[in-house]
């Protein structure tokens, strides 16, 4: 939904009825109701402010839990198997960055592991610690701290980039050897989907609204 009227004057005590666009600072009066799956768009710079997803709390928890379970599976089974000249090499997800470590690329190995596994896990666990108590109508622990760290961590989760990187690498070695996909590979593919869905539904503004309501 688009609002055309720029706000001219606002009453001092009614700040809660407004939001400011994060990209152009336009003040926008919050509409009374936002239909299901309707987004609020800034009238000036057309950036999306928030979307009213149906059952967003339930969906966030469900997507996050699913993603977390899939990632546990992705970390405990073989990821890819490389067969060439009678030699077989099977790697797990951790080894994808651990071999960089063995080559002496310590920082790079840690960065790859952080972007691919650690930061997404951190994000999902933090969101669940926040949302499950909210769902159970309890006070979430460290709500403000989690809210802050979650929005800092999210831009550094590069799960989908890693997945495309894996595909490109496979095209490179396809002609050299026989590649077998492990359970872990498919689990990671599913994880990418659910992680994207989870981080999309629980947008920054939405998370802070839940934190606000729970206090």
């Amino acid at each position, binding site marked *: 939904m688009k609002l055309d009227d*720029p*706000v*001219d004057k*606002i009453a*001092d005590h009614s*700040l*809660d009825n*407004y*939001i*400011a666009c*994060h*990209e*152009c*600072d*336009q*003040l926008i009066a919050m509409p009374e109701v936002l239909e299901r799956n309707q987004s609020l768009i800034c009238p*000036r*710079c*057309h*950036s999306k402010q928030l979307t009213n997803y149906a059952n967003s709390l339930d969906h966030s928890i469900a997507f996050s839990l699913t993603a977390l379970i899939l990632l546990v599976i992705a970390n405990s089974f073989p990821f*890819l198997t*490389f067969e*060439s000249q009678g030699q077989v*090499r099977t*790697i797990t997800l951790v*080894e*994808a*960055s*651990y*071999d*960089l470590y063995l*080559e002496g*690329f310590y*920082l*790079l*190995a840690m*960065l*790859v592991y952080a*972007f691919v596994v650690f930061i997404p896990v951190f994000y999902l666990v933090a969101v669940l610690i926040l949302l499950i108590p909210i769902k159970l109508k309890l006070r979430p622990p460290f709500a*403000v701290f989690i*809210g*802050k760290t979650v*929005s800092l961590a999210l*831009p*550094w989760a*590069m799960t989908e*980039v890693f997945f495309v*990187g*894996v595909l*490109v*690498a*496979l*095209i*490179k*070695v396809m002609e*050299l*050897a026989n590649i077998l996909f492990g359970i872990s590979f498919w689990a990671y593919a599913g994880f990418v989907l659910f992680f994207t869905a989870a981080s999309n539904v629980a947008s*920054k503004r939405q998370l*802070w609204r839940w*934190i606000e309501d729970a206090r």
Partner: protein
Amino acid sequence: MHAEESKVSATSQQKQIVYAKGTAASHGIANCHVCNQLAVSSLSYCPRCKGRLHVRYANSIQQTLAFIVTAMLLYIPANAYPIMTTTLLGDAAPSTIISGVILFIDHGSYFVAFVIFTASILIPIAKMLIILWLCYATSKNTRLSKLELTRLYRATEFIGKWSMIDIFVVAILVALVQVTGLMSIEPGLAARAFAMVVILTMIAAHQFDVRLIWDRQQQS
């Protein structure tokens, strides 16, 4: 009104920002960077998340430029040194980012060549130039409208992490291709430099405050 403004800034020798009507800043309200809570801008800390409150990011342009210049310098070793070394039957062949792309064109894998070229050469260079251009556009009129500049920024912010593809490709190849005595792949120095380029350009894009573009008064 514009004439008046320029007189004020000329006499006081001080940059005075006049915020556009209808922005939070023009009402004396700050939008918390951390939690998007609106608060009176005279407060130092956000009442909701206790984060530091600024009307605009502090020193946004300076910090963005510092990160971009560092990234540009690091992009030189990222291209000059090999990103990985393929050893085939004891014969080591180092390959840089560009030679890797050329190799794929020679092999006829145009799609992979296209992906690597886009992710490792086109996007990083375009990103650095666009951010420099945006920094310039916060103080001078440009041919692009504010809306187009904002769209450009949105695109750079979205596309930023996709440059990391090349690093992940190297990581996977290093782990996967190890046939004892026959073939192995080792990472090269450029991988470190290139990873830093991607990270620094991402930080630069985060540091850039798009609202500065909208704050600029239109001089026609």
